[in-house]
């Protein structure tokens, strides 16, 4: 139907394109600047040992961030990160060789956890699509259910994990880095392939860029959404496995605060909350920024309690700078 369209001024495209390029390179520049500053203050930052520490700190946020990125690219929100991670970690801790019962399912336990993650994600997507409930509500609910299930399973206790393979993820090293880091790297590479080389990946961007237009082109929006949430759930479950391996146990508090870190990393990395822009590579940069900042603050003697506040301010700054003011007036 005829709506009013204004003429495009001849030079209009150039500034817009320029702005986008700044947005993609700025986070990387920030990361390099950060590294430079910290290295100047404390040269220990550049040691190999410290580098390994950084990757160790980054492996879980990266995996979580990948899952969240897929959801945010579509323009949705996923608050269930902590729920899936906690449920996954706890289930792993009671199925694999542990200090509380006689189970020793090893690799099967790992698969079970991934399945649980996929299932919760699937339920998120299904309820969101079929019942037309905004994603933040659905995932708010599953967050609660996930943590609640973990609580119910363990009754507030913690279960020690004795399975050497799982513990190995955190303890055993390959070429200097823990196996967990390699696992996270593997996930990252898989995510890149999915994002850039599959139709599904393109459709995520299409939904974020203009869902009604995407639907007109014959894309099955509902299916893409459900698939995205399911996939995200798998990544969160991997995060749960890594977290359990790192701590050596599973408990219901293992997920606390991770949503915050995940969202910070995704946003700071440059993936727009409105969807359609960004990606897992940007999230990697964002995760590194957050982790390097933490690492740097530790090296400089800043207590972790302050770091949380700094992260909060970082989110605000990152979002404020990236919001496209030209877009719709409506802001909820």
């Amino acid at each position, binding site marked *: 139907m005829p709506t009013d369209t204004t003429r495009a001024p001849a030079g209009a495209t150039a500034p817009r394109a320029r702005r986008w390029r700044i947005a993609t390179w700025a986070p990387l520049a920030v990361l390099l600047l950060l590294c430079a500053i910290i290295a100047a203050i404390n040269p220990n930052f550049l040691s190999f040992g410290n580098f390994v520490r950084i990757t160790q700190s980054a492996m879980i946020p990266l995996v979580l961030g990948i899952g969240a990125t897929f959801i945010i690219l*579509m*323009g*949705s*929100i996923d608050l269930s990160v902590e729920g899936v991670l906690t449920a996954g970690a706890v289930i792993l801790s009671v199925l694999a060789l542990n200090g509380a019962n006689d189970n020793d399912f090893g690799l099967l336990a790992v698969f079970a956890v991934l399945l649980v993650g996929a299932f919760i994600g699937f339920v998120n997507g299904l*309820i*969101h*699509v079929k*019942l*037309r*409930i*905004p*994603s*933040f*509500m*659905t995932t*708010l*609910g*599953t*967050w*609660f*259910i*996930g*943590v*609640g*299930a973990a*609580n*119910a*399973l*363990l*009754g*507030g206790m913690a279960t020690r994990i004795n399975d050497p393979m799982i513990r190995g993820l955190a303890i055993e090293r390959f070429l200097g880095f823990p196996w967990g880091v390699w696992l996270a790297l593997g996930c990252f590479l898989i995510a890149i392939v999915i994002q850039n080389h599959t139709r599904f990946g393109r459709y995520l961007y299409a939904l974020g860029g203009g*869902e*009604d237009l995407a639907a007109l082109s014959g894309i099955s929006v509902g299916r893409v959404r459900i698939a995205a949430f399911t996939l995200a759930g798998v990544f969160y479950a991997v995060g749960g496995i890594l977290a359990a391996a790192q701590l050596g146990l599973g408990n*219901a508090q293992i997920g606390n605060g991770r*949503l*915050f870190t995940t*969202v910070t990393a995704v*946003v700071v990395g440059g993936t727009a*909350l409105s*969807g359609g822009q960004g990606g897992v590579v940007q999230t990697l940069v964002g995760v590194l920024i957050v982790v390097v900042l933490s690492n740097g603050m530790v090296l400089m003697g800043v*207590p972790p*309690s*302050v*770091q*949380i*506040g*700094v*992260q*909060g*301010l970082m*989110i*605000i700054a990152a*979002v*404020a700078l990236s*919001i496209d*003011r030209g877009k719709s*007036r*409506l*802001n*909820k």
Partner: protein
Amino acid sequence: MAAFIGTVGLDRLRQWLPLATLVILVALIGALQPVFLQPATLLQLASDTAVLFILATGVTFVIMLGGIDLSIQSMASLASVVVALSISRLGYGAFPLALAVGAVAGLLSGLAHTRLRIPSFIATLAMGGVLFSTALVISGERSITLDTEARGYLTWITGAILGIPNVVLIGLVVLAVAHVLQAHTRFGRYSAAIGAGEPAAYASGVKVNRQKVFAYVLSAGFAALAGIILAGRLASGSPTLAAEMLLPSIAAVVVGGTAITGGVGSIWRTLVGALIISVVRIGMTFLGVNIFAQNIVFGAVLIAAVAITIDRSKIPIVK
């Protein structure tokens, strides 16, 4: 025409569902465990619900506008820490101080949302982090117990008048004030308009940003009050004192029937919702349900409540 009447009828039904649910639940549990219906138990129920209700009331204002506030639990915790730290030096002055901190935090959240155009969930998530961080730092990352002298200032919270616990009375005062704000003031009317039809409100000359900021100030302010009361009841302040209360608070609002999309709702609904949450919790305890499994029930209840109360026709594209 028949379909139209049918919808109106269904809506009418939907309106009364929360209250009906509450009544049925109380009756059910009372039937299984008669001691539940004794005045002492019910008063205890009311006392335990007070803090939840106050928190939920605050966030109701934000939800009615169409936003969300994910910082209320951190705000309440911070308020408890502020009280714990300053009560020995300021006496009764600790309470206005905590409220003032709340107002400022709410102002900042509101400005971040309206001026910097940051979606409410991010702005408040980030603010929650900042508040949590502040609480950790000023408390030295520990819980601060109040000594006997300090507890003297808390009697207005822990005491009782004519057998009714003060917290219940405070809750009633909050109910009255909040109800007037929501149902009888310009702010309340504007909030409903903004939540139900922001473009129309904007075009009709409503100063939308101003109303939104005020709602966030209210939300943080009530959260601070809740934190103060918690500090009073537990005689201590800690950065994680209210950490588990975010979800039940939002659940209380939604279960009561206020639409998460905004515009439709009231403080009475939040009261009913808070009571339902409390009753379910206490009821489950009475019935011997594992306390940890209760959270699963809450998550499911939350989703179900939203599914029932949400108005899908208002959202063209559900993200």
